[in-house]
C-alpha cells in the first residue's frame, strides 16, 4: 500500500502544480503579467485545492465509494463535486481576502462572478475525480485480472497434477499388478477391482474440469480409489467413514479430499510396515463444511517435499476461491496426521475459470 500512497501524492502535487503553471502562463500571456500578487494567489489556489481534495479523497476511501456500482459512484461524484466546488470557492475567497488583501479579489456578493468561480472549481473537482476514479478502476481491474489468471492457473495445475496422479504410473502399475494376481486368487474380486479402477479414472477425468461438485461425487471417487489401494495393501490399510447426511449435497471444489487421501496413503500408510488407518469425517459446522482426514503416521513439514506441493496447492485453491473464509489445518495428534478443511458455502469469487 505504501507505493499506492506515494503514487497518490505524486499525482496530487504534480496535478496541482500543472494547474498552477497553466494559471501563471495564462496570466503572463493574457493577463497583467508575472506579478507577485498573482503568484501568491495561485499558491493559495494550490494549497486550498490540495487540502480540500485530500479531504475529499479521505471521504471517498472511508465511505468505500470506489467499490460502489458505477452509476451510484457517478451520482456521488457529481453531488460531491458541486458541494466541494462551492466549498473551495468560499474558502479560497475568504482566505485570499484575509491573506492577500492587495489582490482585492473580493467581489462582494456579485452572483454572476461567484457562480462562475464555483463552476470553475466544480469543473476542476470533476476533472480531479475522473482522474482519481479511472486510475483506481484501472488498477482494480488489473488486480482482478491477475486474480482470475492465478485462479485459472491453479485450476489447470490441479487438473494436471490430478490427472498425473490418477495416471500416476506407480499407482497404476501397482494396481494392475495386484489385480493380475487377484485374477487367479479371486476372479470375482478382480472384476470388481477393474470396475472400480475404471470408475475412478472416469471420475478423475470428468470432475477435474468443473469448479464445484457435490461432496457425494467426490466421496465416490475417494471410495473407488481407496478400495483399489485396499487390494494392494490388504489388512495394512483400514478405512473408516463418518459422513453426515446433510453434507452430501454440499458443493466443494473437486479433488480436494482426494488429494488429501492420496497423501495419507502415500506418506502415511505406505511407509508404515504394519500399515494403519485412514478416517474420513464430514460435518456441518454452522454454515461451513468441515472435512477431516486422519491417517496413522507422522507429518514432518521439513521432509515431505512431494506432499508439500499437493498441500500448498490445496491451500492456494481454497484461498483463491473463498478468500479468508476457508482454511486448511494440518497437525500431528496421537500418532496420527490430521488434516482439516473448512469450506464456506459461498464462493467469494464467482464465475472464475469457467
Amino acid at each position, binding site marked *: 500500500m505504501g507505493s499506492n500512497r506515494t503514487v497518490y501524492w505524486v499525482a496530487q502535487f504534480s496535478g496541482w502544480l500543472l494547474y498552477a503553471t497553466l494559471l501563471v502562463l495564462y496570466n503572463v500571456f493574457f493577463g497583467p503579467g508575472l506579478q507577485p500578487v498573482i503568484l501568491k494567489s495561485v499558491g493559495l489556489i494550490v494549497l486550498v485545492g490540495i487540502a480540500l481534495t485530500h479531504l475529499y479523497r479521505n471521504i471517498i476511501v472511508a465511505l468505500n465509494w470506489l467499490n460502489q456500482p458505477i452509476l451510484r459512484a457517478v451520482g456521488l461524484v457529481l453531488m460531491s463535486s458541486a458541494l466541494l466546488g462551492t466549498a473551495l470557492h468560499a474558502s479560497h475567497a475568504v482566505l485570499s481576502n484575509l491573506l492577500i488583501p492587495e489582490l482585492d479579489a473580493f467581489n462582494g456578493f456579485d452572483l454572476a462572478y461567484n457562480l462562475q468561480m464555483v463552476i470553475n472549481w466544480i469543473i476542476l473537482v470533476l476533472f480531479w475525480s475522473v482522474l482519481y476514479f479511472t486510475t483506481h478502476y484501472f488498477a482494480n481491474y488489473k488486480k482482478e485480472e491477475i486474480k482470475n489468471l492465478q485462479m485459472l492457473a491453479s485450476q489447470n495445475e490441479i487438473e494436471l497434477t490430478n490427472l498425473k496422479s490418477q495416471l500416476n*504410473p*506407480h499407482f*497404476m*502399475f*501397482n494396481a*494392475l*499388478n*495386484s489385480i*493380475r*494376481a*487377484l485374477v*487367479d*486368487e479371486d476372479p470375482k474380486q478382480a472384476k470388481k477391482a477393474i470396475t472400480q479402477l475404471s470408475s475412478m479414472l472416469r471420475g478423475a477425468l470428468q470432475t477435474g474440469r468443473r469448479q464445484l461438485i457435490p461432496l457425494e461425487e467426490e466421496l465416490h471417487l475417494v471410495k473407488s480409489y481407496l478400495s483399489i489401494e485396499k*487390494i*494392494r*495393501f*490388504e489388512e495394512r490399510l483400514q478405512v473408516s467413514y463418518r459422513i453426515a447426511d446433510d453434507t452430501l449435497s454440499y458443493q466443494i471444489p473437486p479433488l480436494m479430499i482426494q488429494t488429501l487421501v492420496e497423501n495419507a496413503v502415500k506418506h502415511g500408510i*505406505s*511407509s*508404515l*510396515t504394519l*500399515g494403519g488407518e485412514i478416517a474420513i469425517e464430514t460435518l456441518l459446522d454452522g454454515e461451513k463444511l468441515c472435512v477431516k482426514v486422519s491417517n496413522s503416521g507422522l507429518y514432518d513439514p521439513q521432509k515431505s517435499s512431494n506432499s508439500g506441493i499437493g498441500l500448498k496447492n490445496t491451500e492456494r485453491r481454497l484461498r483463491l476461491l473463498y478468500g479468508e473464509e476457508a482454511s486448511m489445518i494440518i497437525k500431528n495428534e496421537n500418532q496420527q496426521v490430521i488434516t482439516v478443511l473448512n469450506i464456506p458455502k459461498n464462493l467469494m469469487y464467482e464465475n472464475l475459470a469457467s
Partner: protein
Amino acid sequence: MKTLLVDDERLARKELTTLLREYPQIEIIGECSNADEARDEIEKHKPDLVFLDIQMPGKNGFDLLEELHYLPQIVFVTAYDEYALKAFEVNALDYLLKPVENKRLDETIKKMEHRISELKSQVPVGEELVGNQSKLTENDQIFLKDGEKCWFVTLKDVRMFESEGNYVRVYFGSSKPLILKSLNNLEERLDNKVFFRTNRKFIVNLRWVEHIENWFNGGLQVTLRDQTKVEVSRRQAAKFRDLMSL
C-alpha cells in the same frame, strides 16, 4: 538357483511366485515382506538370487543392499520408479517392471543363470570349504551408494580404497564414490591376497599394480595402471615384498 522374494505386498509376491513356477531351475526358499526380515534371511540362507522390490515401508531396497555382508545376484522388481532406476548409472542393472512380462522374465532368468554358474565356476575348488566364506573375493560384487547414486561393482574392477575420515572412497572406472565404512573394517572383509593395505590411508588392488620402486625410509612406492602413485609404509613394505615375491 536358491531364490528369495522380497516385496511388501502379498499379492505382488504371489504373482511373482506364479510366474516363477514355470522355471524349474528356480527354487524359492522364502518370501519376505520387509528389509529387516530379508537381511536376516539372506545372511542365513545365502540365496543365489533375490527379487527385490525397491519401495517398501521402513527401509527400502537400497537400504537393504547397503546392510548386506553377503550380496547375492539382485533383480529389482518395481512398478515404476524412473527415479530409483536412474540411480544406477553405468552398471548392467537387472530390473523387472510390474506387471512383469513373461518375455522379460525369461531373458532375466537366462542372464542370471549364466552369471551365477560363471561365478560358481570361478570359485577355486575347495576354497569354499576352507571357511573363507566371509571374505570377499575379487569376483564378488559389492553394492555402493553415494547420495543418490548406486553401483554394483565387481571387486576386481576396484583399483583402490582410500580412507577419508569416517568414510572410504572407492576408485573404479571413472567413479570414486564415498561410502560410510572404515578402512579397517574393509580390510578384514577383503581377500588380503589381492587387496593390500599399503599404509594407514590406502588399500590397493595388487592386480592393478604396474610399477614398484624404492622409496624413503625403506618404504616403497607403487604405481597403478591408471598412474596413481601410492606409498607403502616401511612397516608394510616387508609384507608387500613377500606377497609380490620380490
